[in-house]
């Protein structure tokens, strides 16, 4: 790594929160206190206690178990959605920066077009057209990530193409594709990683929003957004059901953002400049 700088305290807190959420999701694969989908009407809307540390919902399902499984859904949706954005958007952005001309123009116009539709509206449209469900939510969120990553990759790559080391690579007989992969990509990786954590957090929020509208994961699947959706009916009766999944979302997104900021501070080369850097010494 180019920089010996350590992650900041906030960055470590973010990393720790993200790790806990991921760990919870992984644990939920093999163990939850209760089966999150099993109803126990006798114990419905019971408060926190020994059997149910965080209480139960209106069907008597264990809230803690639901939250654990919800973490899994949130992470799965976000990973795939961001992966879709990175996988398609980054090559598109690199291509636009490398080729310029009409390819660049086309990619940028496609971007403008994508940004003309509010993200959530697009997502609502897609899930409404293709039918609600986790897969379509992923598709909807991922689709919006493509132009984001295309724009970020292009924006970071363009100034690099003017740098002398790229001209040196051209003199060394390297083609544009090769330069994009060998020189440009490693140099914009930091920017992309930071953007990915931001998009990851946004994807979690978007998934929650779609599920809350009833367009994301469908019952009996459990997700934080769904829990909020169902909790609203009992808002006045049992606010706990609305507060807990929201807190889970806030904590996860907060952790990811702290991590992203920490990484940015670490990777930002501008912070490495010293006092008198105008002329190069010995």
């Amino acid at each position, binding site marked *: 790594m180019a920089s010996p700088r350590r992650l900041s305290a906030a960055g470590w807190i973010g990393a720790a929160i993200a790790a806990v959420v991921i760990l919870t999701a992984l644990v939920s694969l093999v163990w939850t206190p209760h089966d999150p989908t099993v109803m126990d009407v006798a114990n419905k809307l019971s408060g926190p206690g020994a059997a149910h540390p965080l209480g139960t919902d209106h069907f008597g399902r264990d809230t803690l178990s639901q939250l654990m499984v919800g973490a899994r859904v949130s992470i799965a949706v976000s990973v795939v959605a961001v992966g879709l954005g990175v996988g398609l958007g980054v090559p598109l952005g690199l291509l636009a920066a490398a080729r310029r001309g009409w390819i660049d123009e086309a990619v940028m116009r496609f971007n403008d077009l994508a940004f003309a539709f509010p993200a959530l509206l697009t997502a609502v449209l897609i899930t409404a057209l293709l039918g609600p469900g986790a897969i379509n939510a992923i598709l909807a969120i991922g689709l919006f990530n493509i132009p984001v990553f295309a724009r970020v990759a292009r924006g970071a790559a363009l100034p690099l193409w003017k740098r*002398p*080391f790229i001209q040196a690579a051209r*003199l060394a*007989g390297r083609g544009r594709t090769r330069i994009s992969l060998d*020189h440009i990509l490693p140099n914009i990786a930091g920017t992309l990683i930071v953007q990915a954590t931001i998009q990851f957090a946004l994807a979690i929020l978007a998934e929650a929003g779609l599920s809350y509208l009833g367009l994301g994961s469908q019952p009996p699947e459990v997700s934080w957004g769904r829990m909020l959706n169902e909790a609203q009916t009992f808002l006045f009766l049992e606010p706990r059901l609305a507060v807990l999944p929201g807190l889970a979302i806030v904590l996860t997104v907060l952790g990811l953002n702290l991590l992203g900021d920490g990484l940015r501070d670490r990777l930002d080369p501008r912070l490495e400049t010293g006092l008198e850097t105008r002329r190069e010494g*010995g």
Partner: protein
Amino acid sequence: MTEPALLAVRDVVRAYPLPRRHPLAPAGTVRAVAGVSLDLARGESLGIVGESGCGKSTLSRLVTALEPPDAGRVHIAGHDPNTLPRMALRRLRRRVQMVFQDPMGSLDPRWTVARIVAEPLAGLAPDVPRADRRARVAEALAAVGLGAEALDLYPHQVSGGQRQRIAIARALVTDPDLVVADEPVSALDVSVQAQVLNLFLDLRARRGLALLFVSHDLDVVRHVTERVLVMVHGHAVETGPTEAVLSRPAHPHTAALRAAVPRIEAAWEGRARARHAGAPPPPEDVRPGDGCVYRARCPWAVDHCARAVPTLEPVGPGRSAACFRAREVMGG
């Protein structure tokens, strides 16, 4: 049968579009290089001097085929790099390499020195086996005075002068005939600049390398090159043996450049320098066919300079200048 000149440039023009002032304005262009010719033989050195924006850097990019000329020809060893098929261009590129101004910017910060210096081999010399690359790289580094311990360092771990040495090693690794250096020492401190200039002198002496040395610094050009070409607004206005041109300029611009260099002798001799004429016009105001490009700030300008365009005419042994009053300028 003589072999073709190592480098022959004929009347190259390179124009860039100007931003339009309004939608219906004609698409204006500024000619960064406006019809320059030059020749360079094996083992020769030529300095290109001029102020920033005079087109000297653009010329270096035309010579290395980083950009194609809009008109005119570039020939390297008899081949036009802009019409060659890709494989032949690669072979040709092994013979022409470049050193850039900014020692930090010309090295990929995420690559090791070994990988940086090996890149031209990987891209241009597929016949060199992978196993031999490291040896060739170490050899090139040794030629610029760096040991094998530099191989696994990153650019930010070495000093500015060493970075420029690494860039020179990269240019040498394919054993080229010609190295184009674009302001290679202008970002360096004086003491380090001397180290790098010595290296260029040494490489020329030992390898018989031809050198195209672009710089704004007359003293530096005088030190490392045999011939010089002076540029103003994309035009070559004077050329000839460096020592002769700089000690007795035939073009007013060369004379002005020389007179403007601050001298330490001023400390005891007093500051006896002619006050300088007005500012140069912005490049887009200089149109071809408008008379001499330099006349707006030329103390020697006469009416004739606005009506006719001076061309490079012989003014001495191996020398030529594009000025109607060249003889007078040389005389006084």
